[in-house]
């Protein structure tokens, strides 16, 4: 692990452990939600940033994870976490396997459209049907038991559980990206033709990455259901797939830390533009402000927030050199 990666993890861990001491209930809820979206963004980062597969149906795996957690929870008693969490991961991964097996036979824009189509199919299975609890969604009556009487409930407890999950996912994906498998994914992202000519069965590599990505999105979905104790069909809609795509673009593609930074920045921007204190009545149109900021960030920061340092290192010396060359005028 590089020093900068370790530094990032230490800072993140310190902040996340310290924050609940001083945060209000609202901030704690916001942080938990943002960490869940950071896990979700990491799942997509594996596909888009590491493998070069732009998936526009990631919300399906998130939603399936969340719905599985709620649908398989007993109505009258607590269910064990050791049963519910693997089940949610398995359901999301299984759907990712089906979607991936078929969609990975296409490329480019067709791949994007096929993954979107599969996500919309999942959305309409849940939306306005008895299975998904109609348009209102379903409540989770009892949170799962971790061990004996230890139930996964209470905002602080869910916050720390989510923090642990975030670090485990970060650690796992960090290991994966520095392994032979991760290297092969990078190769596929840059030049799949060459990888095949060298002897890599790229289809299977991409399918495994797709399933892992789906499973991680399933974890995020599970946590989302645990946090709110409620799921509705909108978590499977294409809006969420678009939002998570924006998060990783904002943070900087190709870096795991970029996905986390992107998720937090996106959530902060959302809070900012929704603030009535700052924007008054315009806050009702917060999507507009958020959209404009994202357009600007893509135009000015092509490598995302994570790439700012590289961009400055390249452009600042040039700018300073040109500044020195400017003719000096006497006042």
């Amino acid at each position, binding site marked *: 692990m590089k020093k900068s990666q370790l530094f990032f993890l230490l800072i993140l861990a310190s902040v996340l452990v310290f924050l609940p001491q001083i945060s209000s209930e609202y901030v704690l809820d916001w942080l938990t939600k943002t960490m869940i979206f950071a896990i979700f963004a990491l799942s997509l980062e594996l596909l888009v940033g590491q493998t070069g597969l732009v998936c526009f149906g990631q919300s399906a795996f998130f939603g399936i994870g969340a719905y599985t957690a709620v649908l398989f929870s007993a109505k009258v008693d607590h269910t064990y976490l050791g049963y519910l969490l693997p089940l949610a991961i398995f359901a999301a991964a299984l759907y990712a396997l089906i979607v991936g097996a078929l969609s990975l036979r296409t490329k480019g824009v067709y791949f994007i459209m096929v993954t979107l189509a599969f996500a919309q199919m999942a959305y309409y299975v849940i939306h306005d049907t008895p299975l998904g609890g109609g348009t209102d969604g379903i409540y989770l009556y009892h949170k799962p038991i971790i061990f004996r009487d230890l139930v996964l409930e209470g905002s602080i407890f869910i916050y720390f559980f989510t923090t642990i999950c975030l670090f485990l996912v970060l650690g796992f994906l960090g*290991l*994966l990206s*520095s*392994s*032979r*498998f*991760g*290297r*092969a994914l*990078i*190769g596929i992202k*840059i*030049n799949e*033709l*060459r*990888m*095949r*000519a*060298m*002897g*890599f*069965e*790229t289809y299977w*590599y991409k399918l*495994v990455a797709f399933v892992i990505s789906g499973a991680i999105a399933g974890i995020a979905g599970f946590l989302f259901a645990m946090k709110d104790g409620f799921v509705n069909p909108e978590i499977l809609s294409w809006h969420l797939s678009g939002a998570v795509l924006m998060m990783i673009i904002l943070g900087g593609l190709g870096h795991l830390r970029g996905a986390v930074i992107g998720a937090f920045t996106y959530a902060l921007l959302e809070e900012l533009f929704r603030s009535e204190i700052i924007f008054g009545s315009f806050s009702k149109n917060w999507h507009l402000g958020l959209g404009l900021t994202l357009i600007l960030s893509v135009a000015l920061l092509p490598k995302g927030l994570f790439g700012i340092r590289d961009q400055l290192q390249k452009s600042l010396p040039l700018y300073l050199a040109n500044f020195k060359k400017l003719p000096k005028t006497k006042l």
Partner: protein
Amino acid sequence: MNQILLRGKNLSRQWGGLLAVNQVNIEIFLGKIHAVIGTNGAGKSTLINLLAGEVPLSGGSVELLEQDVSLWSEPRRARLGLGKSFQKNTIFPDLSVFENCRLAAQARHQRPWKFWETINSCTYSRTQAQKVLLKTGLHVLSEKKAGLLSHGQKRQLEVAMCLATNPKVLLLDEPLAGMGAEETNRMLNFLNELRPEHGILLVEHDMDAVFQVADMITVMVNGAVIACGTPPEIKNNKDVQIAYLGVAS
């Protein structure tokens, strides 16, 4: 030295009404360089793609190291011992020269399920990459980003990556394209060095180079073979003279 490493029998490839490769027979021997020449659109690159498995056959069969690999995928053929370099540079520009070769070497030692082991722990791919870089003379540039190399060095890296996969047969598609005289000579010497341990199929437009290194030459026109023989035989072949010059000299 007469061991046949790769054999293409009656190879054909049709796209709609276009017969890109028509009933071509070709054999690559260990220790020999077999060149394929022809005008643009003669079907040389398609022939390489058929042998490599990148393009499926419309007819005929391919045997690699005495195994029928006609229905095998391109990666499977590569793992058996078929190395291919591309007409255009297909290196990984953001990775270092060493990383490019290590990734290529990894193809023979994939172990993707060992996600807890870092790439650095793979001794085989590291050693193989270092060996190939030393062989090609690129070891002095091993830490340099591949995208920053000169054109000639990129072509060299292309061949180095091909060698890192430890192939028995090399399919080289215009490895000399865009090279200067000095770089061309260096590459030709290098191909001669590779000769004892490999069978080489060379597709090239540089006729001087081809006649300098090739043991056998196949001439293609409009997807079909019009002549096959040693360089002196090809030089004196009337059909070849007509195809290239328009008249027999």
